[in-house]
């Protein structure tokens, strides 16, 4: 187990957080302090240039006072003890807290660190750059039509300390990802590209690329030179785990964030304990899932990570919460109160959200499709919790004909539909579980790292 080493300024402030909480609770019914530091590194290597840049760091202290109806916060850049003490006094004296008796919480104490085998913080920048160069060198020589291969490496190093009357928690969460992007040019000058990514709450051990994986990206880009636009309409489709995960994320991920219940923005609020999908559908959110990109040990409101069963055998059970919405709705909390960084408020946000695996093999599922589409790769998605619409964009898909995947490629492909209709149409679920890391916004902002995934799904949806 790696030892937790906090940034120096954060470590120096931690011992006085108990005093700050005590000071805050003189006037605030509930008071907490979060120290949050997020920094990272990006490396880009392509045929023409290399860039090593710092990911815009954030470091600050959030003082939160909650009176049962409003959550007041003062967010201060950095961890200067005197400034934080002064800000606390100023904050609590200047805030009109109402009387409120918060629910007692269990004692939570501990230091936590993401287990890593090859720690990015122990590797030199030179070593990381050389590893990116090696991947790029293996890819760029594979076809004369390649005009560029770009390898993008990102590491996110998050440190957090949380304290309230019953918590003293600290964590280091280490996330890494790497993209390989292959750009090709066709005979008419048309530019096409494909990409693949690896990610995890982990170290460099999850960023190994086989020759087959690299060749697959090259093949994908070249195939797109001959891609067609799909005839819009309803199709039988098979989704890869990445596409399944995006459907899950946009439907029963965003759609069950309970701050959206409070804002009357989520149709799911009317469906608790009701059927929302085929009995094959099981959906969970689990920030404690080892190794997944969206994992953490406690959320930004000091709640300990644990799985939440959202949909069970096609029945919607419960949503994911932040402190405010759980309190207002009088429902149990889950560990999903997350912030983009110290400068933003916490909302109910996903962590690792996924369809649970089923019993079918992929081969059995493909064999069931007389005419349909195999959706290989997602590129984006957008939620619509109130209308319960799905918009997922796939980079491309292959035709399935007579129970076999053909070479015919369509790109891009948009999936749309009404969530319960789409989930009700699922007739087979494969026996694998794969997770894709990514970044999730609340609407068009509030970016947090998440993962989504699942098995392959056989379903019916509108494509265009």
């Amino acid at each position: 187990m790696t030892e937790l080493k906090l940034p120096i300024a954060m470590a120096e402030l931690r011992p006085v957080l108990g005093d700050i909480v005590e000071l805050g609770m003189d006037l605030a019914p509930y008071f907490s302090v979060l120290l949050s530091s997020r920094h990272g590194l990006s490396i880009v290597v392509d045929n023409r240039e290399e860039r090593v840049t710092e990911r815009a760091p954030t470091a600050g202290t959030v003082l939160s006072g909650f009176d049962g109806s409003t959550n007041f916060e003062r967010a201060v850049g950095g961890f200067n003890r005197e400034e934080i003490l002064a800000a606390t006094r100023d904050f609590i004296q200047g805030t009109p807290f109402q009387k409120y008796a918060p629910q007692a919480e269990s004692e939570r104490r501990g230091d936590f660190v993401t287990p890593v085998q090859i720690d990015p913080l122990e590797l030199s920048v030179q070593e990381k750059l050389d590893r990116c160069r090696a991947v790029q060198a293996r890819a760029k020589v594979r076809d004369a039509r390649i005009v560029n291969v770009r390898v993008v490496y990102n590491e996110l190093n998050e440190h957090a300390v949380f304290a309230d009357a019953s918590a003293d928690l600290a964590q280091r969460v280490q996330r890494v990802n790497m993209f390989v992007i292959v750009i090709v040019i066709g005979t008419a000058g048309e530019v096409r590209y494909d990409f693949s990514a690896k990610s995890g709450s982990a170290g460099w051990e999850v960023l190994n690329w086989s020759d087959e994986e690299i060749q697959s990206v090259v093949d994908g880009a070249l195939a797109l030179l001959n891609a067609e636009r799909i005839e819009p309409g309803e199709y039988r489709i098979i989704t890869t785990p990445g596409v399944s995960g995006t459907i899950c994320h946009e439907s029963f991920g965003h759609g069950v964030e309970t701050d959206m219940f409070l804002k009357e923005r989520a149709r799911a609020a009317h469906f608790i304990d009701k059927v929302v999908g085929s009995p094959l559908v099981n959906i969970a959110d689990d920030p404690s899932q080892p190794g997944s990109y969206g994992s953490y040990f406690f959320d930004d409101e000091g709640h300990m990570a644990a799985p939440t069963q959202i949909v069970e055998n096609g029945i919607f059970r419960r949503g994911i919460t932040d402190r405010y919405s759980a309190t207002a709705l009088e429902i149990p909390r889950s560990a999903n109160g997350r912030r983009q960084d110290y400068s933003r408020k916490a909302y109910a946000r996903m962590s690792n959200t996924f369809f649970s695996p089923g019993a079918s093999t992929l081969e059995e599922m493909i064999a069931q499709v007389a005419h349909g589409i195999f959706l290989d790769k997602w590129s984006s998605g957008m939620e619509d919790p109130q209308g319960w619409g799905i918009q997922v964009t796939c980079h491309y898909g292959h035709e399935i004909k007579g129970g076999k995947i053909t070479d015919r490629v369509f790109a891009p492909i948009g999936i749309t539909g009404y969530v319960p209709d789409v989930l009700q149409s699922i007739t087979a679920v494969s026996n694998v579980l794969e997770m894709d890391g990514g970044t999730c916004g609340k609407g068009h902002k509030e970016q947090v790292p998440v993962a989504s995934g699942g098995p392959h799904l056989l379903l019916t949806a509108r494509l265009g």
Partner: protein
Amino acid sequence: MLNQIVEALKKRSNLAGWTVRHVRTRGAQVYAVPQGIESQRAVDGERYIIDVLRNTSTPDGSPALGSGDASLLPGEDIGHTIDQATLVAGLVANPVHGLPGPAALPDVPLYDTDLQNDASNVMRDVMDHIRAEAAKHVDVRLTAAECFGEVHNTHLVNSRGINAEQESTQIDIEFVLHSQKGERESETFEAMTRRRVADLNVESAIEDRARYTLDSLEAEAPTSWQGPVVLRQNALAIFMAGDNLNGSVIQTLASAASKYAGFSPWEVGKPVFRSEAKGDSLTVWANRCLPFGSASDRFDAEGLPAQRIELIRDNEFVAFAAGQRYADYLQIPATGAFGNIELPAGKTPASTLLVEPYIEIVQFSWFNPDTITGDFGTEIRFGYLVQNGIRTPFKGGQLVGNYMDALADVRWSSEIGFFGSYFGPHTARFNDLKIAGQGQGG
């Protein structure tokens, strides 16, 4: 501390150049839910960002350049931070490029004086205004609103002698209106980014959204359609300028960085369309000087002064938008960060563009074209089929096509408007777009 950093950088003889930015932000945020004010926040931050250049060499010994960067908070170790950036710069061997030198900076209006003086009160006033305007509409309810106001101050100094400072304000608001009729519910969502409160037009934004919310209660899925599609106001602004998550296709393809990387096939002096243009000719500027434009500034992160760059003139590509690095690589003028999208007024009154029948798209779920190929297949959150004098609301269906092909067959209104990062015609009629709705099968 900025002076200390500058003095420390000047002493580093192994650096080929450097830039340091002192960035300070302060702001206020207010969040509302139906029950009242959910959260109030006051936020501040300060940091120094150091970029350094260092002479290096390629494996065959040719001269090259490396760059590195690092940030520090007030009070942190200056020497150690410069060491970190310098170390990284020494690892990279890119083609040699320079830094911008001092130049006259345009006087671009960027801030709201009231917000500068008291962000907390101004944001509370904006929230009160949103709630009051929403309350005027008896059939709709405000179910969520967020108001952010920030003051940004940047002081930039570089090794070539730039020493410049700018202050700007930014306001981001979101609100959601909800309505219900029997079992049917509807909502509309609005998000805006502006530099000053006066440009928010809260009253008309809520008026429009209230109407859409009520009409949405009657909306059904559309049938498939091929023909004229009209975009107006914010929907057109998002189509042209992209959003916070997705830049625009034009921004990507007109970027010197994209050209250098092989993403952009555009060539100066060549048409931007792959097929014959059938509509009004296209002229586009990238404009960082636009008064109160949400992507405007006096100088960018490298210190390059704001400019208004003609990218496309009468369907022909004129110039790439280029930071100093890519300008040097492609041997073209450095224009700096992209900025706002500006189009000239069209020739046709908007009323003439609304010849029936046509589809008007009011809101996309998320217009996110592939910014390299331009292909899109995007869900329509809400729109109208307009024919025989009747506006029939619909929701759902996908707008399917290619971005540049769409622009090759469009007519622009003679009336213009300002929409944060887009300034140009407020109405566009795309003559032949496809909507995938009900009634086709795979």
